[in-house]
């Protein structure tokens, strides 16, 4: 049987711009630990080329290389002087690999659930399932959560965030703008406090916040794990809900979600169409529109900081440092805005950590499946955080939050928060 084309023509042509200079190695968190060519972005780009030219057959070894030595953090993409878009290649190979060899069953069940509308799996049952999945006795005895300490995974929200927030939140005072709020799965299931803060702060800025109830997972974790077919359902659903001309912005509280909505949707749809899948012009247009509207919530707030009501001072100071999530710093080049917000808070003493832009090593399911590599990367991060003596770590990605808070030294009682949560506290004088 002839193997299916791995890449669309566009994507494939991009491979030939890799001049094998190897500068990507300096930015790859996995290479720094593994130190073999397999772990380099250059290596995987070259393997992609061999695969697409038919000089290398898809095998379990290839599958493993593309899953176990890559976090899809995008650092190689944003630092490649030749403009090679490695992530597009790696996710393409993952897709074909999963088509051939299937996905780990545990991931499959989880993604099938995420891929369906959350409504259907209604709060309590999913909550229970998730705890059993990652925290249950049976799981603990048979499997582990890799580099994650199961006992330190936060409790699932009592109630899903989407059930707590009204579909439309009216602004306080003068109405200045209208936004759609895309809250990721993590906010929905684990970190409802982030969601509440986002809505609260925007409301106080005079922004009407619409939180579509039917929104689903952005699809990125599914897509990154190679199941493009399943992720496409989510993409279609989200395009229907969020690609709207009549709003000022679509705000996100999760780096990965916004990166996906902005960068991956248009590319992926185009790619799939070129590979013969059924994608309409309208869908492509909708993806372009959405890409233009999507903004990380800190970017939106920073752009309109003059809308913020005065912050109350209470004389207390807390030391705060900031971790750049890969999908903001690499994918979207966003570094200043979250820091601006933190520095503007009267009670915050801001300290910069060394290597703030380095990956935390989590990478979603990477930390579960490739624990040893992940743990080493996380250790560097955590050491850098602790070196600042900060009491609070701020970051804009619930994925990073989960990973980092799991590895912080428990005796130091550090907290990990979204900058908007700190802003919310400042606005209410806490």
């Amino acid at each position, binding site marked *: 049987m002839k193997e299916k084309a791995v890449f669309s023509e566009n994507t494939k042509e991009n491979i*030939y*711009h*890799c*001049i*094998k*200079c*190897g*500068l*990507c*190695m*300096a930015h790859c968190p996995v290479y720094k630990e593994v*130190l*073999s*060519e*397999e772990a380099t972005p250059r*290596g995987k780009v*070259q*393997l992609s080329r*061999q695969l697409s030219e038919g*000089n*290398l057959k898809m*095998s379990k*070894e*290839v599958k493993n*290389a593309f899953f176990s030595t890559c976090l899809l953090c995008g650092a190689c993409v944003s630092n*490649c*002087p*030749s*403009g*090679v878009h490695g992530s597009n290649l790696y996710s393409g190979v993952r897709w074909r690999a999963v088509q051939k060899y299937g996905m780990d069953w545990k991931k499959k069940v989880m993604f099938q659930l995420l891929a369906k509308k959350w409504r259907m799996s209604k709060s309590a049952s999913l909550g229970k399932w998730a705890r059993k999945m990652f925290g249950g006795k049976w799981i603990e005895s048979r499997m582990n959560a890799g580099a994650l300490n199961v006992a330190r995974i936060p409790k699932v929200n009592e109630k899903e965030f989407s059930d707590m927030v009204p579909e439309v939140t009216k602004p306080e005072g003068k109405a200045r703008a209208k936004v759609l709020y895309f809250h990721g799965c993590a906010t929905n299931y684990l970190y409802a406090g982030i969601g509440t803060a986002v809505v609260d702060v925007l409301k106080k800025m005079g922004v009407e916040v619409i939180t579509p109830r039917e929104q689903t997972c952005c699809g990125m974790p599914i897509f990154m794990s190679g199941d493009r077919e399943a992720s496409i359902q989510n993409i279609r659903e989200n395009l229907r809900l969020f690609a709207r001309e009549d709003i000022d912005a679509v705000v996100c509280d999760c780096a990965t979600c916004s990166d996906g909505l902005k960068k991956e949707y248009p590319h992926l749809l185009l790619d799939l169409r070129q590979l013969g899948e059924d994608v309409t012009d309208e869908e492509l247009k909708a993806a372009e529109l959405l890409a233009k509207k999507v903004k990380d919530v800190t970017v939106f707030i920073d752009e309109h900081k003059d809308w913020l009501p005065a912050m109350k001072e209470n004389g207390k100071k807390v030391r705060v440092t900031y971790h750049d999530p890969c999908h903001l710093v690499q994918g979207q080049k966003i570094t200043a805005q979250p820091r601006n917000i933190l520095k503007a808070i009267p009670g915050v003493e801001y300290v910069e950590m060394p290597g703030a832009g380095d990956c935390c090593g989590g990478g979603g399911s990477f930390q579960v499946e490739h624990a040893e590599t992940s743990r080493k990367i996380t250790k560097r991060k955590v050491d850098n955080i602790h070196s600042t003596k900060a009491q609070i770590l701020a970051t804009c990605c619930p994925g990073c939050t989960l990973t980092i808070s799991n590895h912080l030294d428990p005796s130091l009682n550090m907290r990990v928060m979204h900058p908007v949560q700190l802003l919310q506290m400042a606005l209410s004088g806490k």
Partner: protein
Amino acid sequence: MEKEKMVKELNRLIGKESVLGTDMQIQLYEYDASLIRSKPDCIVLPTSTEQVSKVVKFAHDNGIRVIARGAGTNLSGGSISLQGGIAIVLTRMNNILELDIENQRVVVQPGVITLNLKNFLAKHGYLYQPDPASEKASTLGGNIGENSGGPHCLKYGVTSNHVLGGELVLYNGEVVQIGGKALDNPGYDLSGVFVGSEGTLGIMTKAILRIMPKAEAVKTMMCIFNSIEEGGDTVSAIIADGIIPATLEMMDNLTIKAVEEAYNMGLPKDAAAILIIELDGLSDGMERLTNRILDICKKHHVREIRVAKDQAERDKIWAGRKGAFGAVGRLRPNYMVNDGTVPRTKLPETLAKVIAIGKKYNLPIANVFHAGDGNLHPLILFDERDADELKRVHAAANEILKVCADMGGTISGEHGIGVEKIHGMQLICSSQDLASMRNVKVAFDPDGTYNPGKVLPELQKTA
């Protein structure tokens, strides 16, 4: 020896986790940053001198070829296994072993990444000077193998000026020490022989390097010109005025455009040439020196001068310069880079000839160079999938080498001979010269175990 048997033996010698041999793995080590490809039979990733020694002894005893490999970023095919055998990858020997501030020395394993050493030293207020543009990825072992240069080598000299000795694994696995921490050591200067030997004489498993205190003041300027001749003349004039800046780097228009696209530094895309001039030293007198240079630039009709205000701006300028090769990869899929060197005063003339060669073969050529050293880097742009174009590229590259030699220069300033420039050796060396080098090779490696087919043309035939 059968590959399976080789892998099995190596597994036994140094452990399975350090040996790679599947088809996929071998494809991952068939390239470096040059255009050459050829596969090793298997790959080892040792973590100690002892392991390197065991592998080399095993290879030698069984007539297997051996090649040392760092990050695989060299541009001349130096780390390509032309005759199969074992690739010894040293990236996992990456410890900084000793920092001796009093004597201004540091002892490292070969897999330490150049920039990592610099970052480590910076914390102590020290510097290791050689700075190849690839420093964030290249290893010190590779730098030593190629005797690498970089922008700051104008003032401080190339890698060989900073390597004082180290530990070598010889062809039969024996481990010896050469040189030492002192500036002069008794007996022959084997470090001098070894640095730049491109993996053909042995493997360095430990290196003693010279470090220097960080300069008190640094000034980085970007001077923009409307003609490449004016840029070139400025370089000659600065040196003629008795000034040796830390760097004198030049980029031409095609390079400027590519760099701007990749790094968005606000470079004027219509400029014909940019000179990056850095001064370092004591703060006293720095202003005066700067003004002298600015005067010279003005005399040569500089269009604009930008002085970096702080470290961040300085870093940005250098990120652009150091990413220039990669950025050029945006223009066409491949480039062939030459690094011929000519006497500084011949720079403008040579450049004109290079441009003419590009026209003759209908190939775009981007130029980035260590202008202060007269070290050219014409990057011939092409697409290797186009056979006719590839043929023209090789012809043009040869002609450029010849031009450099005719100008009284040489065929490689820093990237090494490897495979790509081996046929150019005769342009520079007489057969007697080559024979004397061959004697050195035989003295170190009588059975031709190390990196066969590189550097010396005749040896290639008889190996």
